[in-house]
C-alpha cells in the first residue's frame, strides 16, 4: 500500500520535535479528520536553517511531514514557498490515492509557518 520511502519516513521520521525560539509556526488539519501537523521553522538571512514537526495522523501524514523537513532545510523562503503537496508526495514515490487529499498537508502547514514568519518580521 505504501512505498518503501513512505515506510522509511514513517518508521524513522526526521526532525521530530519543537523549536522553542522558532521564527514561524504553522498548523494544518484538524483532529476531527484524523490528521494534524504542526511545524516550526528557524530562519536566518532569509534561509530556513532548522525545521521541526509534530504530527497526529496516519503513516502518510507522518511521512509527508518528515519529508518536507528534509526538502526545506537550507532553502530560501521564496524557494520553500514553492513546495507543493504534490511535490512532497512525489518525493516519497507517491501516496495511495485515498491519502492524497486527507493526509497530504505538509506543504500547507509549511506555508502557514512562512506566513507566520513574515507577519512577525
Amino acid at each position: 500500500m505504501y512505498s518503501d520511502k513512505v515506510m522509511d519516513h514513517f518508521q524513522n521520521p526526521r526532525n521530530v520535535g519543537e523549536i522553542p525560539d522558532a521564527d514561524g509556526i504553522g498548523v494544518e488539519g484538524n483532529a476531527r479528520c484524523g490528521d494534524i501537523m504542526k511545524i516550526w521553522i528557524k530562519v536566518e538571512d532569509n534561509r530556513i536553517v532548522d525545521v521541526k514537526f509534530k504530527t497526529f495522523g496516519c503513516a502518510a501524514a507522518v511521512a509527508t511531514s518528515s519529508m518536507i523537513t528534509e526538502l526545506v532545510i537550507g532553502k530560501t523562503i521564496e524557494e520553500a514557498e514553492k513546495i507543493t503537496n504534490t511535490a512532497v508526495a512525489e518525493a516519497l514515490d507517491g501516496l495511495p490515492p485515498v491519502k492524497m487529499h486527507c493526509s497530504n498537508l505538509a506543504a500547507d502547514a509549511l506555508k502557514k509557518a512562512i506566513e507566520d514568519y513574515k507577519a512577525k518580521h
Partner: protein
Amino acid sequence: MKTVYLDHAATTSVRDEVLEAMLPYFKDSFGNASSVHSFGREAKKALDTARETVAEILNADFNEIIFTSGGTESNNLAIKGAAHQYKQRGTHLITSAIEHPAVLNPMKELEKEGFTVTYLPVNEQGIVSVEAFQNAVRDDTILVSIMHANNEIGTIQPIAAIGKIARERGILMHTDAVQSVGYLNIDVDDLNVDLLTLSAHKIYGPKGVGALYVRKGVQLVPQIRGGAQERRKRAGTENTAGIVGLAKALELAHREQAAVVPKIEKLRDRLLEGILQIPHTRLNGSRTERLPNNINVCFEFIEGESLLLNLDLKGIAGSSGSACTSGSLEPSHVLLALGLPHEIAHGSLRLTLGRDNTDAEIDYVLECLPPIVERLRQMSPLYNG
C-alpha cells in the same frame, strides 16, 4: 519474525479437521447435488449431513437452514427478502446504529425503496435498550434486525428480550450472529429469533460460505434468481466443500466452546488489564456484556493506522476503527454511536483473540505496545505529557 494474530473478529484460519473434511468434495466427490446419478447423490448426502449438523446446533429443523455465500448474503436475504415479502403488512423496519454494513446498507437501500427505518441508538456501553425498541415499535413494523454481538466492540445485545416483544407484536426478528457463534448460546428458541445469520470463516471454517436460519412459516423473496436450490430461497449450485467445512467448523466450535472460551477469556482479561495500565487509555463498550475474546480501546492523542502499522512491524496483527483504515474520512460509526469525539475515535485499537493464542504472545504484545504508544504520543501535537 515472531507473529501474533489478534484479529480473529476479521477472520480465522481453516482448522486442520475442517480442511480434511472439505478436501474430498473438491476432487473425488465433485458431483452437483442436483444431479440424479451417484456423483450427485454423494454431494446431496454431504449437504444433508451438513444441514442436519447446523440445524441441530441451532436447535432448528433441517428445513430451516439455507446455505449462502456468507454473512453478508445471509443478512441481505433476511432483511431484503423479508421486507419485500411482507411489505403489504407494513413498511417500517427497526435496526440499531451499530450494525455491520451488511445490515445497514440493505436497510439504506430499502429506505430508498420507500421503507422507513428506525436506527436505535446505543447507550455509552454500546448496548441497545429493550425499552427503546419497545417505544420504536409501530403498527406497521414488520421486521427488526439487531446483531447478537457487535463486531467492533464485542457488546452483547439483549436479543432474547427484544425477540420476545417482537413475537408478541407479530414482528419478525433477525439477528446477525456472525461474531457470537462459538462464544455464546445460539439456540434460536432461547433467542426468540425468526432469522439468524451465520458465517464459517469467523469460526475456523472457509471463507465464502454461510447460512441463514429461517423459521418455519417465514417466507422470503429470493435475492438471487436461478435454479430451485435451497428450497427456492437461494439459487445456485451448492458450494459442497464450503458447506461441509461450515458444518464441521460449527460442530467443533460448539463442542469445544465450554473448554476453550474460559481459556481465551483469561488471556483477554490479562491483556486488557495490561493495556489499561497505559495512561489516557479507555475501554470502548461494556466490560461485562462483552464477547470473551474482544478488546477495543482508545489511546488518546494518537491515530489508529499509525498504531496498527507499528504493531505490524513487530508482527502483531490487530485492527482499528480509524478513518484511515476504513477508506473513508469518518472514523467507526460504532465508536461515534458510543458518543466518543472524532479525535478519540481515530485512536482506537481492536484486538480479538482466538483459540491458539498463548500466554507468551500476550506477554510479547504487552512488551511492544506501551513504547509504541509513547513514541507516537511524543510525536503528537495534541499531547503535552
